[in-house]
Each structure stands twice: as structure tokens, then as C-alpha cells.
């Protein structure tokens, strides 16, 4: 594969899967905090 194709592949995977994982991580953390707060109450 050429350098251009490798760069675009990495760029696409990082942006989509990386972005997806990042947003899902934020959601997961928030849900965890929400559950903790419920347990504390």
C-alpha cells in the first residue's frame, strides 16, 4: 500500500472508531457516576 493510502486508512479509523470510543467512554463514565450517586442516596 502507498503512504497516502496508509495515511488515509489510519486517519479514517482514528477519526471514526477513535471518536466513537471517546464519546462512548464519556457516556460510560457519566452513567457510572449516576449509578454511584444513586447508591449513595
Amino acid at each position: 500500500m502507498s503512504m497516502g493510502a496508509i495515511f488515509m486508512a489510519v486517519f479514517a479509523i482514528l477519526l471514526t472508531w477513535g471518536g466513537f470510543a471517546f464519546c462512548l467512554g464519556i457516556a460510560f463514565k457519566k452513567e457510572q457516576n449516576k449509578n454511584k450517586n444513586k447508591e449513595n442516596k
Partner: protein
Amino acid sequence: MDSKTRGQWGSRYGFILAAIGSAIGLGNLWRFPYVAASNGGGAFLIPYFFALLSAGIPILILEFSVAHIIKKGAPGCFGHLNKHARWIGWFQAAISCGIIVYYIAIVAWTIHYFIFSFNLSWGSDTEAFFFNDFLHVSNSPLSIGGINTGMLVTLILVWAINCFVIIGGIKGGIEIANKIFMPLLIICLLIITFTGITLPGASAGLEYFFKPNFQALTDPSVWIAAYGQIFYSLSVCFGIMITYASYLPEDTDIVNNGFITGLGNCSFSIMAGIAIFSALGYMAMQQGVSVEEVSAGGIGLAFVVFPAVINALPGMNSLTGVAFFLCLTFAGLSSSISILEVITSSLSEKFDVSRKCVTIIVSIIGCIISMIFISDAGLYILDIVDHFINTYAIALAGLIEIIFLTHVLKLDKIRHYANMRSDYTIGRWWNITLKYVTPILLSIMFIFNIFIDFTQGYGGYSLKALLVYGGGVLVLIAVFAIIFDNIKGAADYEESLGQGITYDWEDK
């Protein structure tokens, strides 16, 4: 229907899975890779991501917010904002009716091919098998011929699965179905991807898919293709996301859910592109031709080219075939369920009739109409109907929805509402994309597609066939929308129309 008795998602992940499941459809597997490769390869990803951020995700956030505030299906939402705008919602519900009848026929085909995969029943001439032996395609769209009785049982089965899931309700039906389908869909895609990238010649396929041709970025049609791909693939503007978001609980996130849904859909598309093109690279190497010569999109890729790729594999042929067609089946089912939900929720809300009763009636009528797509001319009719609904109906519905919502709603207030209940916030760029970028690009896309159709025709079909099926489906959609907009609904439903939004959230 009383908002207190409305169904609700059991968890945030239930909603996210269902929304992503709805967005991921057959097009992610058979449309995106081909569109990307033939529109600049890797360079296409730049307008694609730009379209995602400037149109896809902003529309998702807008639909999630409006549905979360009003808590009604599409006709109810638009009618709540302005009682004269209820028809926009019915227009979207009518589009869903038009799509579901052929979409389920395709899911039935994928189930047949899943069974064929076990012993590679399609033989060596996959094209002849699909068109002649499997579909018994007639020589003209206007010679309908008979119903393919072998496919009838599968068609009824797919309608029954959809009906059963919708009757189960939001938490007990749709959420559970997506919690089963989505992990299986990902596992199947991982199997095809792993098989694909380990094949000799895969790098040539990936080179074809990812190699950037930056010259293509100066071509306006590449940008239109990118906006079209994002717009059609995210299930926005025909009621699905409005309906799904109306079942969100009060304490929920809006902005991050929009980003997760949009990015989840694109992640799947990229992965599907890697799987498809690495396999096509292998087949090109086997045949000693370029990847361009073997690449295809749409139904041809799924039912002709990919079975030929499966035949040519050095091992695990059946496993790869089973994984590929299961992947298509799960992607199709998760989308068809969401489309059926738009119709049943709209009707049950309006007439205050039980979900079970409406779903059974809609499924029986839908199943009867679907039979035309398993006739000898089914493939032609499906192709024409799909083209007309996508090019004209969905694009027009999207344009009307965006212009209406951005002019009726105070976007700053809606943004504030979304930000108040989100993991992170969005800025004024959201208003700008919705008010200017999206409507301008949708208008250009709509006019461009009409121009192409009028100057070049479509698919080599006769004008008569295009008018009968394409024009016919558009007329039926309009008639459906007008009829259901004008029939009097339940008293509670009619009273709730035209209330608008009061914007008193800061005080709560």
C-alpha cells in the same frame, strides 16, 4: 396516547444500540465502500467527515432534542409545533411505508443467501444464479409474471419477526432485539474483515479503497455524493430518529447520543469498506484484473460479486458466506424494525389504538404489498421505487423538515435545552450548519439529482416504467400523507396540536 403510558427505553445503551442499529443498514455494507472508492478513494473521506459534522450530527441532535421535548412520533411532533405542519410528519411516515415494503423483501433475499452459503448453492455462475434461478427476472419491469412462491415463506417470516419485535414494545421488543442483533452484527463483520485482510491481494483492494485522489475534491459531484451518503445512511428526516428519541427518559443525554450514533454508523461503514475491498483485492488478483474491474456496489455487490469472491476463497468459504449474509440480515432487520416503528407509533398515537392491533394490521397489509417485490419483475420495481423514494421523497422531506424546524424553533433555546442535559456542549456552529449549510447543500443535492434524472434517465428503464412505478410510488406517498393528515384522530391527540414550545426550561 398519554405521554405517561408511552414506552420508554430501559437504558441509555438500549437507545444508542437501537439508534445505531437503525442507521446501520444494507447501504453501509454495499453502498458506502463503492461510493467512496469511485469518488476519490481516501480523499472522499474528507468531504464525508465534513458532511457528518456539518449535516449528519447536527440533524441528529435537532431531531433528538425536538422529540425529547414533545415526546411524540413524527406527525405528533410537527403537529404539536404547528397544527398545519402535521402533514410533514405524515409525509415522513408515508415514506417509511414506501421503504419498508421493499426493504423487507431484500432482507428475505439475504436470509435465502445465508442458507445458500452453507453449501455454496449459487454455483460458479453467480450472476445467472441470482437473476435467473433465484429471482426468475422477467425481461421488462412491466411484465410482472408470477410470485416467487419459494420466497413467499421467507417474506412472511421477516414480516412476522418485525411484527413480533414491535408488539413487544420499546423496552421488551426493540431494545432486546437490538441487544441481540448488534453484537452479532459486529462479530460477523469482524469475521469477514479478518478473513479479508489476511488474503493475498488484500492490500491492492485497500489501496484502491483508501488511495487519495485529492483532485476529486475540486469536483462538486464528490461533495454531493458525500452529503448524500451521510444523509441517507443516518436514518434522518423520515421519522425514525424522532420516533426513537421520543421514548428517551427525562434524564438523558442528547448531544453525546447524537455524536455516538453518527460516529458509530461511520465506524461500521469504514470497517465494511475494509472487509469488502480486501476481499475484492483478492478476487482481482485471482482473475489477474484490476480491482476497479471487479468492484461493484448495491445489489450486484451483495448477491453476484461477493458470492463469486466466496467461491474463490482458499478456505473457510461457507463460514465467510454465512458471516456476510448474516451481517446483511442483522443490519437489515435492525433498520426495518425502526422503519416499522415509525408507522405503528404514528398510527397508534393518532387513533389511540393499541400497538399490537396497529402492528398486526400494518404488517398484514405491508406483507401483501411486499409480494410485488418477489414477482418476476420485483428486482426492477425495487430498483425504481428505491431510486425515486431516495432521490425525491427523502431529499424533499429532509429539506422541508430542516427549513420548517429552523424557522419555527428558536435554535438558541433548543441548543440550550440540548446542552443542559448533555455530557458536553455544542456551540453556535450548530445553528449555522442547520440554518445555512444543510438546507443549501440539500437543495443543491436535490436539484442536481433531478437534473441527472431528466437528462440521463435512470437505469436504462423506459419512461413508462419510471412513471408507473417511480411516479406511482410518489403519488401513493402523497395520497397517504394527505389522507392521514385529514382523518380526525382521538380527542386527546387533536387537542395537543398546535401547542408549540413554551421555552420555560430555565425556570425548571
